């Protein structure tokens, strides 16, 4: 299959390893991977802030780039939700309405694509560590992804998954929310980190780098030993 991999803007700039791991995994499974170089951002920041005209300016070229894709795979639950769930709303009653719907139906979040579409559960990865999984809210509640990442982690050799009590609680990132209301965002992050620490995990794993950026930022500022890592990086460790 030819897979069009959508690398979110912050993964591109800040967490290239997560993106590289996705390419390696998908190619390792024998698929052809394309990464449209003209895509930079899905348009979520202006969309979530209420600037829908400005969001369409960013999103329209994305639709254009994804027009002929057989399958679109997005390495983030949040950007995945933007394309899959919110593009049809953003482009409703515009000339691109139909296209947005079509692309939505061909779009997958990375872990859900592996398990739900390809039926892959074991990638032969090894990661001998105790980890806990953070459900990014968009992946969890907009796209309904809960099991896929856990199924994949369940097959990683040496990995021990310990669920935290606040697994489904928002970490407090929330895009521009983190900068507009930093004090609330920080309080939420502290609750999350405390819950993760209770599990005794060495790593917080997630399918959303944006949440991890926020959590890692808090953890390293506070000098806490627990680390964060994207699911794809865990799955690519041999």
């Amino acid at each position, binding site marked *: 299959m030819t897979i069009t991999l959508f690398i979110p803007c912050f993964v591109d700039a800040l967490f290239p390893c997560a993106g590289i791991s996705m390419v390696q995994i998908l190619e390792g499974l024998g698929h052809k991977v394309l990464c449209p170089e003209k895509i930079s951002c899905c348009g979520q920041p202006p969309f979530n802030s209420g600037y829908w005209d400005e969001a369409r300016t960013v999103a329209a070229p994305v639709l254009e780039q994804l027009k002929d894709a057989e399958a679109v795979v997005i390495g983030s639950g949040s950007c995945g939700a933007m394309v899959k769930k919110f593009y049809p709303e953003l482009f409703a009653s515009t000339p691109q309405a139909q296209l947005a719907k079509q692309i939505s139906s061909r779009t997958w979040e990375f872990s859900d694509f592996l398990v739900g579409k390809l039926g892959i559960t074991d990638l032969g990865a090894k990661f001998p560590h105790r980890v806990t999984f953070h459900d990014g*809210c968009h992946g969890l509640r*907009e796209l309904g992804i809960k099991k896929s990442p856990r199924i994949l982690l369940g097959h990683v050799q040496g990995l021990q998954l310990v669920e935290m009590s606040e697994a489904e*609680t928002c970490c407090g990132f929330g895009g521009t929310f983190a*900068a507009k*209301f930093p004090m609330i965002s920080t309080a939420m*992050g502290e609750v999350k980190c405390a819950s993760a620490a209770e599990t005794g995990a060495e790593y917080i794993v997630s399918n959303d780098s944006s949440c991890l950026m926020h959590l890692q930022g808090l953890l390293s500022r506070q000098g806490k030993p627990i680390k964060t890592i994207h699911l794809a990086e865990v799955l690519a460790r041999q």
Partner: protein
Amino acid sequence: MSTFAAQFLKHARVMSGDLRHRKIIRTALGNYEIARDQRQAAFQDWQGARQLAAVIKWEAVNHLDKYLEQFVAKLEARGTKVHWASTGDQAREIILQIVRDKKARSIIKSKAMTAEEIHLNDALEKAGLNVVENDLGEFIVQLRHEAPYHIVFPSMHLTRGEISELFQRELGSAPTNDPEELTMIARRVLRKKYLTADIGITGANFAIAETGMISITENEGNARLTAALPKTMVTLMGIEKVLPKLADLALFLPMLATMGTGQQITCYNTMYGGPRQPGESDGPEEWHIVLLDNHRTELLADAEQRDALHCIRCGACLNVCPIFRNVGGHTYGTTYSGPIGSVITPHLRGLQDWKHLSNASSLCGACTQTCPVKIDLHHHLLQNRRNAVKGKPAFFERLAYQAFGFVANRPALWSIAKKLGRLGQPLQKLVKGSALDPAKAWTQTRDLPPQPKESFKDWWTNRK
């Protein structure tokens, strides 16, 4: 920024760092969560029940005119006086007129969020009346001269010790840490008030169109006494409280108890159908119902967000909301807090003044997931943001997003922007977290990730 927004920011800043508050709320809600989950599990099909509740509410709200007329006709047939109030002012004036007609001096009042919404107590007190709240939680916050903290648990932010101190100070009672004893102290004060009150004011949890009755659900029996003892009863309710059929309560009463307090059913569930009828030996001689609009019909006219009128005020969305849990109920500065408050306050009190509540959300969707009547809460926050920008965009924010769009659509510029970011990082480290730091909002409490030398796109281009 509106003054309400400035207040919100100020209080949110303090509260979100208040670890004592965080712990009190977490403990209180921890118990609630366990009970709620158990009660939910007792439903044969909780998701099916939610769906059914949403359908019934949809029917009621989308044919509100029909059901209200039915409701009122039945009420009037049994001698209840029905008043329509378009605004809070009108509702207050109607109630004050009843007070004047009855030459009332003292009023006993059971819990009613609509009364909070229109600041009824203030108006009554200004008119020289003595008003006593008789729901225990409301009684406590009234003694503290503060608004309810939560729509279901008005005093959940207080510890037993604080309540005991309050009672010692205000009522002269002996110190105690025993919840039963605290309740008894309040009861002793309140019982006297019931017997001397001229008017009892209640809210309503549901109104049944089919039979012309209201349903009040409670745990302390205080609403029953409020309705039964004074000669005149006044009920203030929002027009959206109507349910079509009596049988609908079979779903809504256990649902409200489950989500509100984690109970299978609350202790007292009472239906009121009219004032004392000829030949009856008790009940109020007169019953007035005030039906409050106060911008609800405007929300009704908004097809996108009309479902916000489904709300049964169970408080469940507040309980799961990480924003509410960290900033607390009073920070919202308005009657309805938490997700539902952030959705409807802009409709009730003005979008531009209250849009900050819709912005103060990570859009995590926990509220929507829990809401028993399936209100699309967090998407309504998103729509409020869009509507607020449509009405009055923030100049610099829009400019920033236009610039962002311009760069994002030009891969060459985008890659230069990334490079600039990388070059700027060492400089930013020097001013980290200070007033000079452009990323201060982030870096005051969080480190920025180091920007790697090679971006994903660099890697992708190089390997080809």
